[in-house]
């Protein structure tokens, strides 16, 4: 068992697709709230293989895409300081701020490093005590344990030249916000499997019950995605509204207890503005007061920041599932992965980038 080829089997995929087709008798809209799943669905053409009545709506599941513009501008200002080595995940480096992006800051002489893990940034801080090393700690509940551990190790090693610019976002409050919107058309959700490996399934159980909506914890391989969709459709057709776990090989009901304990030590819940969506109450994590010494926002005073979004970009509507990337007039013309206007065109988890990579040369689908 390698957990890859087995969950890519075309014959089993056909069985799942046939079962979905047999069960679907009415139009349904199902949202995935994970950029990894959006990428998988578009890459494998899963949406095009489903019955016509079944619509997949892409949710705000790309962490780079929803990081507030004001925070990116703050990152750019910190990264431009001469004493700072600014470390970030690669896909954040090209996300446009109000006036520039991190790669341009690097081209202009700023010390910007692309790293794979916050531990890489921690090592840089240990190696060069003369530099102030800052890590851009963005992401959902899946990324937060890594950043919490980086803070813990920095404290244990008594590092004074390491800090985190934290802008974590949480999935359940976003689902809550989507369901509470008056024009909500989403009837069922695929919950992000890897977020649940950390947090478990409890929060989604209560969401499903309160909003009477089926939620299925779903993995990332083609068969996982199809099984998640099949279970949501089954519930919708039968009037069910419960939390189910279709990714049991990776997700336990209580999540990862060790990670949750460390997360709770380091972070506290806060209100967060989501780029393209707006403020969502209690939808983020920030460093607790006890960790203020490792908070880049407090360490570096960069003055007042006025954020300006580009007018042509429809990223906000794409992120809320109100339009598809190809409906944006800038898609593939003014906005491409090389010259992105909005964040969803940058990250491989962004819906616009996925459509650009796999769909831009395609003729319209005739069913």
């Amino acid at each position: 068992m390698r957990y890859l080829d087995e969950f890519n089997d075309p014959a089993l995929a056909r069985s799942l697709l046939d079962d979905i087709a047999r069960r679907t008798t009415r139009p349904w809209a199902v949202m995935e709230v994970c950029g990894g799943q959006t990428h998988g669905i578009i890459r494998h053409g899963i949406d095009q293989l489903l019955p016509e009545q079944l619509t997949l709506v892409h949710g705000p599941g790309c962490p780079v895409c929803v990081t507030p513009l004001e925070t990116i501008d703050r990152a750019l200002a910190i990264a431009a300081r001469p004493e700072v080595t600014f470390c970030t995940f690669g896909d954040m480096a090209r996300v446009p701020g109000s006036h520039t992006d991190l790669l341009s800051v690097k081209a202009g002489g700023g010390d910007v490093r692309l790293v794979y893990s916050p531990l890489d940034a921690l090592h840089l801080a240990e190696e060069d005590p003369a530099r102030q090393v800052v890590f851009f700690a963005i992401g959902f509940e899946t990324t937060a344990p890594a950043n919490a551990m980086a803070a813990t190790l920095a404290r244990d090693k008594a590092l004074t030249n390491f800090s985190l610019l934290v802008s974590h976002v949480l999935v359940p409050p976003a689902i809550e916000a989507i369901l509470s919107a008056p024009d909500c058309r989403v009837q069922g959700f695929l919950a992000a499997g890897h977020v649940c490996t950390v947090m478990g399934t409890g929060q989604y159980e209560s969401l499903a019950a309160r909003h009477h909506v089926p939620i299925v914890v779903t993995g990332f391989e083609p068969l996982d995605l199809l099984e998640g969709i099949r279970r949501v459709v089954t519930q919708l057709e039968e009037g069910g509204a419960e939390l189910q776990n279709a990714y049991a090989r990776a997700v336990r009901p209580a999540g990862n207890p060790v990670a949750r304990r460390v997360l709770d030590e380091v972070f506290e819940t806060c209100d967060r503005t989501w780029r393209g969506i707006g403020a969502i109450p209690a939808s983020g994590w920030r460093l607790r007061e006890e960790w203020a010494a490792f908070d880049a926002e407090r360490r570096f005073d960069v003055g007042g920041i006025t954020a300006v979004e580009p007018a042509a970009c429809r990223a906000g509507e794409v992120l809320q599932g109100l339009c598809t990337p190809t409906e944006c007039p800038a898609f593939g013309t003014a906005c491409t992965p090389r010259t992105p206007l909005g964040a969803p065109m940058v990250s491989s988890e962004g819906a616009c980038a996925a459509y650009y990579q796999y769909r831009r040369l395609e003729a319209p689908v005739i069913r």
Partner: protein
Amino acid sequence: MTGASPSDRSPWRRREEVDEDMCLGVPGRVDEVWEAGGTRMARVDFGGVRKEVCLAYVPEVEVGDYTIVHVGFALTKLDEASALESLELFGQLGRLEEEPHTP
């Protein structure tokens, strides 16, 4: 499974960009485990690409286990029994279709 095999027009193929997709949670096999400054670390093999990974959050993981890794941290141990159960269920769906339908 009824009808012609869809494999000739299968929309999915083998993953060739393992490295790029790693942050999207590709499973990897733990090849080697060691201790560094009180933290358990591992060498994890992602279909040929090997990465150093922190095991602080998965104390139960041993050499030979498969795990999901996110930005350098293993987050969960994959459970083979659950995986086989899912595949068995998918197989049953196909066999159900082959049975003649009663009107």
